[in-house]
Each structure stands twice: as C-alpha cells, then as structure tokens.
C-alpha cells in the first residue's frame, strides 16, 4: 500500500481541489514511537509504538478508556505527550508543529466547534486559517458542503445542527486544506447510514489517490469492511497491529477483538432485570 502510482485518477466522489497530492514518499504517514501520557495517577497511554503506512486506511480500535482519543490528540499536536515522538511524513509534530499540522486534517472527538458560526462560515474560517486564497476557500467550501449534503443548511448556525450534521461539518473542516493525512476520531458516530456511505466513498477515494486515513471506532464491522490496516489498543498499550487480515487471522474482527481485550461476559443479566 505504500507505493501509489502517480497516474491514479482522483475518484469521481472527490473534487479535484481536495484530492491530496499524490505521494511517492516512502516514509510512513505517521510514525509513533514510545508515546506515553499519564493523568495524575492514571496511565492513559504507555509506551505506544505505531506505524501507519502512507496510503493506508488505518483503523484504531479499543475498548472504552483504552487511550484512543488521548493517543490521537497527542499525535495531532493537541495534547503534549509525557514521552515519545510522533512524525507525520517525517516531520516531528512536537518540534515543528506548524509544518506538521499543515499535513494533518483532524476530526477531534469530544470538543466543541465554533458553533455560533454558520456551516459555511466555519468551513471558510478553517480554510482561511490554513492560508488558502479566497478563491480556493470559496470553491472548496462549496464542494465540501455539497458532498456532505449540507448545502441546504449552509446558512444555519452550527449550534442548530443535529449531531450527525455537526460531525459532517467538522469533517468538511478537516478536509478543506487537502491534508495528506486524515485523523478521524469516531467519524461515524450519530451519522445517518446514507451520509456514512457517502463519506466512506470519499475516504476510500482519498486513500486511492495517495492520502492516508486513520479512524478510531468502536464498530468492528465498520473497521473490518473499510480499513486495510488495524491496531488494537487497550489500557494504553498496543495489543496487535498490521493488515486487517493479519490481525483477525481467519476470525471476524469482532471475535478477535474480544479475544485480545477480554472481559466478555456470558450471562443473561441479573434476575431482577428479566421481565418474565
């Protein structure tokens, strides 16, 4: 997956302007080495190593509280790690944050947006922050709102969007500067199936044209279907990583995940909860 020929045409779902520059770069899109973070007594991430090949569609899975969001925050320059380094296409995130962040499109989980802006203003704002020209910003914003099915709601303040629409506008913001790496924390949470399928097409097209996508998710089915690589983390440690087929080894990803992480109960629930 690391060798993408230059002549792959951008897929129809992805507007030309947003397609990443095709890369012959042999360095991994993201290389995480010895990443560690603790909050007080609690260890959130403990010596995590991760290599995300360029052009891969990489799934990051783990149980609740495994450290997925913490890891992705540190990898995208939002949370300072206690130890370890993160390189994005060879650029160290924490020594050259400005250069590294230009390569990343980030959909963070559990943060607000500037929700008093309209959807159109928010995407425009993000484009301007990355220093795109006014023409570029205008064209890309229109494209992205159309892809995300938000053209109707372009003039509505984001605070009045539904949860799924908010996710979509955040995704549009992550795409507007045509990053080489997309880091998406729970991108499909509360997104309706039709929009999810549309977004999936866009992301697939993006990786075929040389972009790299990292998604964190709780949905094993989704990861098994969409991703070509996967990493399983629990309690801040890497339990397994590689291509999806390598990791699941003949089982479904769901079963393999439960086997790796453990903690599955086989019970019908407490007696008092049963209705008959």
């Amino acid at each position: 997956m690391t060798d993408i020929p230059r002549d792959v045409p951008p897929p129809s779902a992805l507007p030309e302007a947003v397609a990443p520059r095709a890369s012959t770069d042999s360095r991994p899109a993201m290389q995480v080495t010895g990443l560690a973070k603790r909050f007080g007594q609690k260890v959130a991430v403990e010596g995590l190593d991760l290599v995300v090949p360029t052009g891969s569609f990489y799934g990051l899975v783990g149980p609740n509280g495994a450290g997925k969001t913490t890891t992705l925050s540190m990898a995208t320059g939002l949370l300072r790690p206690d130890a370890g380094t993160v390189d994005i296409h060879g650029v160290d995130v924490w020594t050259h944050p400005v250069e590294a962040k230009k390569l990343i499109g980030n959909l963070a989980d559990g943060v607000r947006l500037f929700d008093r802006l309209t959807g159109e203003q928010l995407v425009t704002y993000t484009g301007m922050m990355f220093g795109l020209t006014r023409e570029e910003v205008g064209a890309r914003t229109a494209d992205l709102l159309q892809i995300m099915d938000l053209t109707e709601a372009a003039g509505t303040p984001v605070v009045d969007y539904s949860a799924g629409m908010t996710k979509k506008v955040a995704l549009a913001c992550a795409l507007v500067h045509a990053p080489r790496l997309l880091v998406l924390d729970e991108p499909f949470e509360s997104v309706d199936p039709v929009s999810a399928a549309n977004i999936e097409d866009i992301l697939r097209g993006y990786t075929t044209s040389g972009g790299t996508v990292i998604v964190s998710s709780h949905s094993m089915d989704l990861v098994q279907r969409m991703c070509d690589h996967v990493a399983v983390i629990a309690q801040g440690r890497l339990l397994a990583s590689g291509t999806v087929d390598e990791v699941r080894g003949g089982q479904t990803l769901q079963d393999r995940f439960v086997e790796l992480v453990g903690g599955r109960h086989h019970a019908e629930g407490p007696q008092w909860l049963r209705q008959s």
Partner: protein
Amino acid sequence: MVATVLRIRFRVLGNTLSRSPMQLVGFIFGVIGAVWMLFLAGVGLFFVGTLDLDIARAVVTFAGAVLTLGWVVGPIFAAGLDTTLDPAKLAPFPMTTRQMMVAITAGGLTGVPGITTAIGSLAVFLVWVRYPAAAVAAVVCVPLGVVICVVASRAVAALAAGIGGGRRTREVVGLVGFALVIFASPLFVGVTNLLFSASEQGAQLQTVVSALSWTPVAAAWAVPGDLAAGAWITGLLKLVIATATLALLWVLWRRSLAASLVGPPARAARRRRSGSLGWFGVMPSNPVGATWARSLTSWTRDFRYLRQLLLIPFAPVLVLVYSRGDLDGPFFAASGLLVGFFAGILAYTDVSYDGTAFATVLQTGIRGRADRLGRMLGSATVSIPLVLLADVVTLAIVGKWELLPAVIGGSLGLTLVGLGVSAVSSALLVVPTPAPGDSPFKRVPGSTFTMFLAFFLCWALVAVLALPAVIPAVMAVFFGVTGAGWVSLAIGLVWGAVVFAVGVLIGGKRFDAGAPTLLAQLRAFQGA
C-alpha cells in the same frame, strides 16, 4: 427523596473540594468571609436592639431588603447560582416538580450563603428579645424572609433562563434581564446613598423605610417591628404581603421549571441565506484575518461577549451615581477613562470563551503572534469605537469640548495597554466560562481564588502600564493644565501602540509554548 438529594449535594461538594486544593482555598475564604459578616451582623444588631424602637425597626427592615435583593442580584456579580442541583440534572429521577423545588430550595439553604443567611437572620432575635410580641412574630417571619430570599433567587434565574421558546429569544431575554439588573443596581446604590444622607438629617428616613416595608423585598422583615410598636393591623397586612410574595414566586418558579423540564432548549429552525459570510467575506484570507473575523463575529453575535460590552455604558452611570449626580465636577468628564480601562481588559482571558472549540484553532497550527493579533484586533474593532463614542457623549453632556484630546488620549491609551496586557494574559490563563447560550445567572463550576487573583493582577498591570497616558490626561481634566491634553493624546496613541505590539509578541511566544496546556485546561473545565 429530598434528604437523598441533599446528601448527593454534599457528596459532590466534598468531592470537588478534595479534588482541587485551590478550590478548597477559595471555599475556605468564602467561609471566613461569611463568618466575618455574621460577626458584624450580630454585633450590629445587638447594639441596634439597645437603641430606640423606631431606629431598630428601620434598620431591620432595610437590612432585610438589602439581603433579599442581594440574593437576586448577587449571582450575576459574584459567584453565580450553585448549579449542583440543576433541574436538568434532577429531571431523570422520579420526583414531582414540587419535590424538586423543595430539594433545590433546601440545597440553597444549606450552601454557605444559605447557612450564613439563616444564622445571620437569627441575630434579628437579638433586637426583638425585649419585645415579646415581636419575638413571637419573628419565629414565623424570619424563616419566611429567608425562604423568600432563596426562592426569589431561584425563581428569577429560572425565569431568565426559561422564558420564550427559541434559543435566540431566550438569549435576548437573558441579555435584557442582565442589563436591567446591572443598571438597576447603581440605582439601588443611589437609593442607599439617599437613605444615608437622609439619616443624617434624621427626617425622611422613616418615610422611605416605611414605604419600603410594604414592598415584597422587605415586608417579612418589617412585621415584628410593627407588632413591637403595637401596629397590629399593618403588621398583619405585611405578613399577608410576604406570604403572597412567597406564593407568587413559588408559582412563577414552578411554571417556568415545569416548562423547561418538558421543553429543553429548543432548536431554532431559522436559516440565513447561504453565501453570506459576514466578516469572513471581508477580512483577508490568512490566519490573522480568519481569527479577526471570528473574534469580531463573537463580539457582535455571542451573548456572552455582548454582556461584557454592557460594562461600557455602565462605567459613566456608575461614576454619576457615586458622584451623586454631579455633572459639573471633573469626575463625570473623566469617566471616559474608566470606559477605556474596562474596554481594553475585556479580552483578558479571550481563549476561555472558545471552550474546547479552541482545538480547531490549535489544529490549524496557527502561529502565536497571528492568533494574538487577530483576537486583539477583533476586540479593538468593537471596543475602540465604543470608547470614542463614550468619550464624545460624556463630554457632550457636560459641554467641555476642550477636554476631548485629554479624555481620548487617556482612554485610548488605557484601551491599547489593556489589549496589550490581554494579548499576554489570554495566552497564559483560561477560566471556566458559561457555554455559549447558558444563562448569565449560572455559576460556572471551577472558578478558583487564583483566578480572581490573576484578574486583579491584570487590572493592576493595566493601571500601572497606562500611567504615562493617564497622568497627563488627569492633569488636564482635574487640574486644568493647559496643553496636557494634547500630550496625553500623543503619548496615549504612541505608548498604547507600543504596549499593544509588545503584548502581541510576548503573548505570541507564550501561546506557541503553552497552547496545548490551555486546551487541556479547557477540556477539564468542560468535564467539570
């Protein structure tokens, strides 16, 4: 059920305090302040009891009125309402609206202000101990007065938060209510001044207080005094007024609470035509322009920012009240300086209002100085015209146009210095703020003593750094030194611009180093 809720309330308080030592310090300071006020009230009322009955009645009635108004107005200026027992949090539990209201009232009574009020009001018995009829009446009336305080504060907050359906309506009503309360309070101070000056003459005091004793805020506190004086009929009528007040507040509160429980913040389905980018279409397409446009959009549309802008007309009004309506003296003419002082420092913790949306800023990899410059330009774009307007209007009122250069120089100097200080302080400091659209009455959990300290430090810093511009302005306005006004204008603009630029550079460096820490703190506030 009520007891269970109260147990939860104290559990939450205990957990919060044990988790954060600085909050414990703030809490202890609050308790010390409360004990000190109790001591003063006790000693004061003891001596009042030994005085003439008329004076004792007047003092108790007036103190009761101040206490009740304090409960209603206090949350806005000081700590805000304790939202540990928020109706929205209690809604999922199987309790009736009445049980919920009893629980919230009981929670209000058992907080530090509630306990202080309850103990303090017991001191009223020190006054009435010599009048048996009054003492008996006080057994009923003092608890009534205290409960009115608590219920009034909750009812007003619920009303301010719950009127109207749409988000926009609610926000506008909240802003108007906030403005009314802010502008009513100097009037209240004015009335107090009037009272004290009247008491010097000893004549009108009685009339004013007896009029006050018929109002809902003081009726309950006036009853024992009336009985002590043998005025049984008026005492009884005031007891009826007080009871009716409580009943009315209860009904209003109940109604807005019931409405807010089943109809939580509604979504406004209002749309603006697409393609209207507002400020984003005007500003240059680069990080500074983007930040500037966003900041300006917040200053003109976000009600949390608009509430701060209300301080600007508030300053001259405040000066007018404290100078007892004296338009001819130098104080009102110089009130533009106070406006400039407030206006510059408004953005002292600008990043706080981003909330976790600050992540969007951070992930664009913006350079610190671009961020600082954009934010401060946004703040300046609204505050500088307002400062100039305030300068011109106040001077037009007093008709002293010759002071214009001095006042403009001093006020703009203060504003620019304030912006420069804000550029640094807002890169170092975030404080918990209400989320966009929250009620202005709502207390934000996690405010600590250190934050107040930092706030006053910023104010002091602005005051000191702006001295080069303020001193000539003061010389011109207060001592009529000719030529000092133009000196003030020149120094104000040049020195102000220098401090502004240096602030942006230093703040930018701090931002580059510390922005992820700010985001981590903002996340913690959101979780709190």
